[in-house]
């Protein structure tokens, strides 16, 4: 059975994954839209930057974020001065860290989805009297729904497995910033393999069922005629 502090860690993990995924999706829609439609030269640079978290060691991301968000950092220092308090070792800091860590997993599926819709159907919608916002809501969004599903699940699952960024940025405060992956690490450190096994199994089952759900749903969408 799971220990009480493990349940808490699991709860924090799920909360962290949900919150950062929701905010990330909202912020990435305009970015992905721009990347899918722009002919600007800056596109290549932005794409490389968006992909960077995929190849950087998570400890590197965590390290810079710690400097940036900590009491003496550019952002953290500013927040201290206006009385909000810095973000190192806080749940909010973890949300920011997770968002950067999962950025490529959200931007790429959305960008592909918007790009594969093409401009033809949007032009058709324009000649059918739909305003730009209307076209986005009634044509682009529904046609990109597979992209949204993929992006959400990848971001959520990726955040579940996050370790390096969190250990650097959030420390290991039970009840506040201790997530499941860190709790497993602690159990192994203290040679409590049984507890580590239980928590690890929960993560495996959760991640697998989410991915399975995505593949099943994507297949169903295809049958309804939304593929390509």
């Amino acid at each position, binding site marked *: 059975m799971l220990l009480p502090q493990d349940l808490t860690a699991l709860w924090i993990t799920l909360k962290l994954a949900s919150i950062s995924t929701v905010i990330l999706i909202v912020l990435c829609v305009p970015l992905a839209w721009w990347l899918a439609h722009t002919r600007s030269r800056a596109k290549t640079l932005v794409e490389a930057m968006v992909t960077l978290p995929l190849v950087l060691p998570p400890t590197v991301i965590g390290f810079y974020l710690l400097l940036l968000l900590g009491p003496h950092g550019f952002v953290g220092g500013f927040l201290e001065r206006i009385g909000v308090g810095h973000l190192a070792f806080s749940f909010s800091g973890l949300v920011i860290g997770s968002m950067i860590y999962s950025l490529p997993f959200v931007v790429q599926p959305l960008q592909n989805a918007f790009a594969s819709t093409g401009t*033809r*159907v949007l*032009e*058709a*919608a*324009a*000649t*059918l*009297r*739909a*305003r730009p916002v*209307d076209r986005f809501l*009634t*044509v682009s969004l*529904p*046609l990109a729904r597979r992209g949204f599903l993929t992006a959400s699940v990848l971001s959520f699952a990726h955040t579940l497995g996050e370790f390096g960024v969190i250990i650097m940025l959030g420390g290991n405060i039970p009840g506040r910033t201790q997530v499941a992956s860190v709790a497993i690490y602690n159990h192994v450190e203290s040679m409590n393999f049984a507890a580590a096994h239980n928590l690890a199994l929960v993560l495996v089952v959760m991640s697998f069922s989410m991915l399975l759900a995505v593949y099943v749903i994507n297949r169903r969408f295809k049958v*309804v*005629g*939304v593929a*390509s």
Partner: protein
Amino acid sequence: MTIAARFYVDRGAFVLDVDVQLPSRGVTALFGKSGSGKTTILRCMAGLEQPDKGHVVFNGEVWQDAERFVPPHQRRIGYVFQEASLFPHLTARGNLRYGWKRTPLAERRIDEDEIVALLDIEPLLGRYPDQLSGGERQRVALGRAMLTSPSLLLLDEPLSALDRERKREILPYLERLRDELAMPMLYVSHSHDEVIRLADHLVLIEDGRVQANGPLAEVLVRTDLSLSADAEASVMIEAEIVEHDEQWHLSRLVFSGGELWVPRSEYAPGHSVRVRVHARDVSLTLEKASGTSINNLIHATVTSVVELEAPTHALVRLDANGTSLLARITRRSSHLLGLEPGRTVWAQIKSMALLD
């Protein structure tokens, strides 16, 4: 009631520079080879593309000038793309209603039942685009555009992605839109057949410029254009069915220049039809031939003789009591017959196509 349009688009290798006045009723064909700029003109007309310099006034309503650019969704146009661009996430019915829902009540002149009946799409309504054939998709796209009750329907080679059979399936529907709903259309095409069958007015585009602009029958017989130098060169004759000959399976038509026998038409006497006559199917004799297998002999006067680019051929333009004909013959024959303006001849028409 006209459309005045001026567009200038500079894309380096390609420059479009046109300034045209078009009738805002009937079917106007923008005709030219691929790459001539006709689709760009249509897209500028719709506002899908913004020319470097441009100006469009539709029946007195300014769509574009130096200060204004009315976006496509405010232009009251319908647009049918080359390949059907139906929304894949909506059924045929959902597609049809997309524009209709966005058309203000006061502007709705055409309703769904009318269009569904006219285009025979009732059985398709519940299906998604990927469950429709190419021709069916194009019919739904046509209906979808019509349901915004447009003031002008723009069609960008709507049949070019379809095979021969499917084309034959759609053409009658376009004729019904033209005849039953009196929908003004701008029709981009590179097919002689479609243009001669549908258009009232013809704009010939070459290398981004307008070469000719006028009523179809008049432009087709101009001997100074590339159109008549083409092996496809032909004229359009408007004729009326007078009677059917059941024994020989023929129909007799009359037009200003005489009468024509064609394969039996399904239309009743009194119906007017278009006939396409290729210049290469017309031969000339000085005397009325007797003992010929050719049924159609028309007495006509030579109005001009032009030497074609091919060193062997000449194009003779004839007047048959108000109807112009073209004959593509060898220069040698022209010389031997002594053809010159004013000379009367008999035109023998070997074959022709009845288009309606």
